[in-house]
């Protein structure tokens, strides 16, 4: 079965962010596929390269990146939601004349159309947080 995950929960602020990660692992371990993980609302902060949680807490960013590498996951961050909240790729930072870029490796910025497409092409769409 093909899944799309939609994440509204900010990392280290909402349980939904960590639950989404564990759900993604469980989906893949069960032999299902993940078409896309779409980060929206406050969930876009999952794509910030600058998160630095204490060593004795889970490193959600590192775990998303490891899962992405292992399964070539599509981790898409909504560009409009990310611009509002300050998660920018190199090209967006330069286009918007901002002093730094912070989109983490393994994540891509894209528009809301990617959510509509993913919902249409997946058997299940599961939402976390919000």
């Amino acid at each position: 079965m093909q899944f799309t995950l939609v994440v509204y929960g900010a990392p280290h602020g909402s349980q939904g962010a960590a639950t989404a990660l564990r759900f993604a692992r469980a989906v893949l371990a069960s032999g299902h596929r993940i078409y896309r993980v779409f980060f929206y609302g406050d969930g876009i902060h999952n794509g910030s390269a600058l998160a630095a949680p204490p060593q004795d807490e889970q490193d959600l960013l590192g775990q998303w990146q490891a899962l992405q590498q292992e399964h070539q996951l599509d981790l898409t961050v909504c560009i409009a939601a990310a611009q509002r909240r300050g998660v920018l790729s190199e090209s967006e930072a330069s286009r918007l004349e901002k002093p730094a870029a912070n989109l983490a490796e393994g994540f891509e910025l894209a528009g809301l159309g990617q959510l509509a497409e993913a919902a249409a092409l997946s058997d299940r769409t599961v939402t976390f947080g919000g």
Partner: protein
Amino acid sequence: MGKSILAICRHAPYGNALAREGLEAVLACAAMDQIPEVLFINDGVFQLLEQNPEGIGEKNLRRNLQALPMFGVETLYVCQRSLETRGVDPDRLVIPGAELKLLQDTGEFIARFDQVLSY
């Protein structure tokens, strides 16, 4: 393609950005010819009341709502029980160009759809 999509709007208009971002996602889906049905439930029913958010520096959500019929979302479904428990008179809900339909049994309604996007 060709899946039926329901968007559920659950948040009051300005307390959480998901109210606005949910409507933006609805419009984006509709612009891609995947016109969702839209259900307002829980505090989401407050989105349909007259609003005056300039005092808190917010853009009026009404513009997004009024755009829905232009994008093909012509019926807005509203949970009747959510209105009743919040003391909201259905006559106070008006979106020009859209028809409002009150639902008694939202569970049965939601179950009809292939995909549910929740905001």
